[in-house]
């Protein structure tokens, strides 16, 4: 896919809306096209986290699993949603498992590169952190609602 197209996909994503063109171009430098087949594990709880994914089509289950516990789905994400942010903080390990529920077309961003760019350019850093913090917050809310529902 051409760089221009990648930039267009990112630009049209709600998360990246309002980013300056130069910032979008910076993100495109860290972006690659990826595809997953139904049932594929996109990433697994506990493993090192390097990338995030912008879903272009298909549905992804964000799951929680641990020994003695059957995996359960915390939420289902779809077109336009972003998965993966654990590359932002030590210990840089996945908190959830992401599983493709169908064919997934996505754009993958290299987390380390994005972090470096944010460190160098706080305008970009500010805009991106505002967005990623909100994603994490959204997961906290989903976990809390779930907790309330299951706690005796």
């Amino acid at each position, binding site marked *: 896919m051409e760089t221009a197209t990648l930039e267009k996909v990112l630009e049209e994503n709600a998360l990246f809306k309002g980013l300056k063109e130069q910032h979008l171009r910076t993100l495109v430098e860290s972006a690659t096209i990826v595809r997953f087949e139904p049932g594929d594990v996109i990433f697994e709880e506990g493993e090192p986290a390097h990338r995030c994914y912008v879903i272009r089509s298909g549905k992804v289950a964000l799951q929680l699993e641990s020994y003695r516990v059957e995996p359960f789905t915390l939420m289902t994400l779809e077109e336009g949603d972003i998965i993966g942010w654990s590359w932002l903080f030590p210990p840089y390990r996945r908190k959830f498992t992401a599983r493709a529920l169908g064919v997934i077309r996505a754009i993958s961003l290299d987390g380390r590169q994005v972090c470096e760019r944010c460190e160098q350019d706080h305008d970009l*850093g500010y805009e991106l*952190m505002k967005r990623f913090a909100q994603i994490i917050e959204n997961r906290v809310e989903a976990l*809390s609602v779930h907790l309330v529902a299951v706690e005796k």
Partner: protein
Amino acid sequence: METLQGILSAHPFFNDLPAPHLETVTGCVSNVRFKAGDVIFREGEEADHFYLIREGKVALRIHSERRGPLTILTLGAGDILGWSWLFPPYRWKFSARAIEDTRAFAADGKCLREKAERDHDLGYELLMRFAHVVEERLEATRLQLLNVYQDQ
């Protein structure tokens, strides 16, 4: 006498925050006290502050239709309370109630948000720190949820 800025700079949350930014934050901070039982903020209300707890204990609660308020986390000295002032719609997702007499620094989040919007160096520093607080909360809630599942 220890200055407010001196006390704040010793807190891990403000670790390595450049002096001019710390000064800005200090300008938005005041001392507050809550008696045991006081409501610090309520779910759904406008979120315009965050708190750095100096002494005491605060229960973070979420309302369950079925069982009323449920405590999801207890915070104490050194903990940061509140991040909803950072993201639209700027409303509290949880309620906070002092369960012991509590002393805290209250920071005017609305004022900081506006300053961060103008000064992205400050904004980046603050967002990195708050994103980390949100991430720690996520981990605490995730472990709590896994515990509930393992106990069942």
